[in-house]
């Protein structure tokens, strides 16, 4: 079939209804979902099995379609034009005798693949229609209308081991007995401790005595402990001065600090 014949066929050889359909194709170009969709629609006019469709004929129809669409000054998307170019190429391949030096797929192979694509698209459309024709939940069959909700009962089980219990008790006992030392305060001597120990001692401090004499046992050798004890003892002695219990003196800068019981204060202990 020559191109001219095909064109004629497309233009005049169809019934009125077919011509209207062809017209609709052009008018509704935007309604098509791409070139493949157009090709599938065009192929229906061949009224044959998609596998035996004439790709050459189809290519001609498509090219005519694109021409007419352009003539109607419809904006054609790029992929319609790409398809047109590709089909023009395919048409030339199909019409010319095969060139043995030419590599790449033959026109027949390309045409066969296009036919396959069209058949597959048509098959998917049929499958989609069959799927949608099935009984559907919420339309044809229904789930339970009053589902009974699964009640979730959450039970909390508390647990404790004997060790937890022992640790708990040990914690309380520790707190009781060594309250000031609960934390790791090995090297911290508090003012309260110093006060407590000095109160017991100042009764015996009638004469000026160096503050260092009041440092607790075991706190004089390690410099860290000595510093802590000295600071605490000094702060405690200031407290005692404030309370009017002792007197403090220092003969010179950095000279030893001395203290003695204040005369008239009978509250040594």
């Amino acid at each position: 079939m020559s191109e001219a014949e095909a064109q004629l066929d497309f233009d005049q050889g169809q019934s009125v209804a077919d011509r209207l359909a062809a017209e609709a194709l052009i008018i509704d170009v935007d309604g098509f979902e791409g070139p493949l969709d157009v090709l599938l629609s065009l192929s229906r006019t061949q009224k044959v099995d998609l596998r035996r469709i004439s790709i050459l004929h189809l290519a001609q129809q498509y090219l005519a379609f694109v021409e007419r669409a352009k003539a109607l000054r419809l904006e054609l998307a790029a992929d319609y034009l790409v398809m047109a170019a590709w089909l023009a190429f395919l048409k030339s391949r199909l019409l010319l005798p095969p060139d043995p030096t030419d590599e790449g797929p033959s026109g027949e192979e390309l045409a066969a693949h296009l036919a396959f694509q069209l058949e597959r698209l048509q098959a998917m459309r049929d499958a989609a229609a069959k799927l949608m024709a099935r009984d559907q939940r919420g339309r044809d069959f229904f789930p339970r209308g009053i589902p009974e909700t699964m009640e979730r009962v959450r039970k909390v089980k508390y647990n404790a081991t004997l060790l937890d219990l022992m640790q708990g008790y040990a914690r309380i006992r520790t707190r009781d007995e060594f309250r000031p030392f609960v934390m790791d305060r090995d090297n911290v001597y508090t003012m309260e401790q110093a006060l407590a120990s000095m109160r017991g001692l100042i009764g015996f401090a009638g004469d000026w005595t160096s503050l260092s004499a009041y440092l607790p046992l075991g706190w004089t050798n390690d410099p860290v402990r000595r510093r802590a004890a000295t600071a605490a003892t000094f702060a405690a002695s200031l407290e005692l001065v404030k309370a009017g219990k002792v007197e403090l003196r220092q003969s010179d800068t950095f000279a030893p600090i001395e203290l003695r019981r204040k005369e008239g204060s009978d509250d040594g202990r």
Partner: protein
Amino acid sequence: MMDDNDMSDHVEKTSLFEAPPMAEQERMVEAILFASAEPVTIKELNDRMPHGCNAAEALTYLRKRYEGRGVRVVKIGEAWAFRTAGDLSFLMQKETVETRKLSRAAIETLAIIAYHQPVTRAEIEEIRGVSVSRGTVDQLLEMEWIRFGRRKMTPGRPVTFVVTSEFLDHFGLESARDLPGLKELRSAGLLDSRPPPSGAELVGQDDDEDQPELFEDDD
């Protein structure tokens, strides 16, 4: 169920206006009750079923069919619905058990009760040095690890708490006396065994001389 043979002649003649067979009506009632989001009245059933159906009768058959089944057809007010059979309601619950560690406050309170029982709330508070929340005591009571003991013969006759056999069970103890003493706590490294930095007079005081007294008025 109706005898189809008896009626076949009749059915043939009037099939256009004939109600579906009762078995079919029963299926309809079954489907409607199943799918409806609310209980359905007889009137609604009749309205929805083809002309000439007798929903009340179909329902009777349906109820009979579901007798003893896992679901039953029940009447709710004037309407009907499917409901899970009462004896299977346990299937509709999903019980998840979550194990949680007892809070520190609860463990300490429990320990004091175990070591000092019978002990009043005021005594617990004195030993812990903080007040004991009602929730903590309630939780231990609910767990059945403690119970009320005899009232103390002191002013106000306060209630006391003691540990339960449940408690002993859980901790694998024969009696509260089997609780490790302070010496054992110390050798287990749970009690600080360092001598306090100063105030040597405190050392030794935390040995368990007083432990025997803990259980003095144990019952």
